[in-house]
């Protein structure tokens, strides 16, 4: 029996048409047809192909037991891991409504620029950002001329010169942000043994990312009753262990924004968080732009592919092959 798009064609009228067509069609599925004489092959195909039916009961039992034991072990490991995680007494950060939260939402570049000012005036006294160069600011938060001016404002070690001596020179666009300390040991010595981490990738390096940075910067408070903090350390509930080597750095009006935004502590914390987010993910905006393009493009391609598939398969789908065994 052979139907094609509504035209019914009998290839051979005759008494045994069914058997004939089945014989032609059954080359691919002959075992099924051979076994299933008398039942409808169309409804029980999957059962015929399954190997589970033929498996010994003992084997099934062993496999099931292995599955249960394996799943249980994985669950136990997960639970144990979670219990370890819950042991610390730090406060977990909440999720703040950042303006770059959306799937297609870019970073706020005015905020990046203010955040750079905060970093330059406050954070850079102790924290390095050795993977960010002044040229990275161009077209993100500064024009080329402004970025050059920013670079000129710092002294960069260079050399050796003709006499083999290192010398200082004004920075260039290709220079990276200067390190406030010559090396880690000097940084520790100047900070009571605590090493101020490099901030280049800090939002990617901490759980909670920019939320954590914001919470940490604004979360300083007096230690609760029963908690004593060692001399030279400060209490911050968002820091692991609660005692942090960094003193509260952001207070209202600790600096002034060049664009006139009121420099409240939370404003500065928010701006520097956005700046650090950009520093860790400079591709952030491009990534979301590409996501928009890719989603639109692939939904188009999917629709087209689906249409072509249906078009090509229509011939195969609109036929029915039936087998009626001889009585």
């Amino acid at each position: 029996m052979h139907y094609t798009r509504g035209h019914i064609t009998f290839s051979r009228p005759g008494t045994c048409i069914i058997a004939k067509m089945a014989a032609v069609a059954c080359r691919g599925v002959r075992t099924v047809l051979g076994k299933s004489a008398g039942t409808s092959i169309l409804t029980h195909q999957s059962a015929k192909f399954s190997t589970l039916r033929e498996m010994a009961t003992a084997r099934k039992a062993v496999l099931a037991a292995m599955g249960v034991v394996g799943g249980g072990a994985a669950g136990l490991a997960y639970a144990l891991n979670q219990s370890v995680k819950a042991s610390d007494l730090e406060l977990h950060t909440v999720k703040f409504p950042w303006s770059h939260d959306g799937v297609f939402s870019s970073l706020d570049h005015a905020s990046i620029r203010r955040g750079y000012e905060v970093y330059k005036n406050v954070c850079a006294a102790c924290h390095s950002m050795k993977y960010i160069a002044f040229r990275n600011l161009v077209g993100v938060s500064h024009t080329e001329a402004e970025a050059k001016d920013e670079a000129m404002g710092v002294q960069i070690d260079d050399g050796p010169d003709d006499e083999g001596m290192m010398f200082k020179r004004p920075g260039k666009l290709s220079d990276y942000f200067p390190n406030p300390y010559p090396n880690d040991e000097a940084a520790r010595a100047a900070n009571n043994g605590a090493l101020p981490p490099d901030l280049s990738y800090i939002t990617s390096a901490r759980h909670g990312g920019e939320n954590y940075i914001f919470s940490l910067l604004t979360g300083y408070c007096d230690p609760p009753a029963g908690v004593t903090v060692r001399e030279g350390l400060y209490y911050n509930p968002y820091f692991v262990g609660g005692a942090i080597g960094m003193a509260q750095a952001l207070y209202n009006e600790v600096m002034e924004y060049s664009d006139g935004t009121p420099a409240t502590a939370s404003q500065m914390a928010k701006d520097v968080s956005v700046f650090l987010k950009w520093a860790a993910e400079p591709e952030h905006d491009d990534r979301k732009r590409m996501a928009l393009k890719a989603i639109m493009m692939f939904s188009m391609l999917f629709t087209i592919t689906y249409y072509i598939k249906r078009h090509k398969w229509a011939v195969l789908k609109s036929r029915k092959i039936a087998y009626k065994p001889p009585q």
Partner: protein
Amino acid sequence: MLSYLSRSAHLAPALKSTAQAVANGTKNIIPGVYEGVVVELVQPPPKALTAYTMAKRCATGPVRASAGIAVSSQVRYAHTDIQVPDFSDYRRDDVKDSRAKSSVESASSRRSFTYMVVGGGVVTGLYTAKSIVTQFVSSMSASADVLALAKIEIKLDDIPEGKSVTFKWRGKPLFVKHRTDEEIETETSVDVGSLRDPEADSVRCQDPKWLVVVGVCTHLGCVPIADAGDFGGYYCPCHGSHYDSSGRIRKGPAPLNLEVPTYVFPEDGVLLVG
């Protein structure tokens, strides 16, 4: 051969109803009459297990259906007991109504639509392929930090007249010489034909006041000494090559003039090399 001997199961219908045979397509149904001891050898129809045996059971050649008083036949067509499925999901609106106009009329519009969709697929596919290819190819180009170091910007105001200053550029020394009027005059008046590597001074210097050359001796790669040598330009201490104030080889083993990099003066007093 034993199995071919009168299998009662297969013979039963023939034995039972001599007057009525159903022509169901199997071979050798012989309306037989049992006559005592005569044993008819009948080849049993093969069991329908494989495509081959099923094909064996099918009628071959023109199918005959005989009818008569003695022999009644029954011809059964498939469409009486198999339901025709509904395929309208796979058919286009233009051809769904079989009573309507001929499908030929709408053929070109139907095909056009499909070709249009396929064309759209080609277009979007090309765009995607181009984006992916450019992405991978551009990853082979120099990275931004290398490009940032590939150019050097020099403030010319810092270089006094008559002095040659050395900069580091792409790991090589770069000589920038602020030439005096005398030096300019000397170099422009040199007979180009008399040089080992003939090059006019105007070709080597965009601005006659400034000579910009890579400070690597063309002989064996030493770094020449500035403002030295017999011709007032550069002198290579390794094997005694003398270059003039235009960086041209005048005396010694070096075969070529000092290399002039690509450079521009983007604004007054600024030199951009690279």
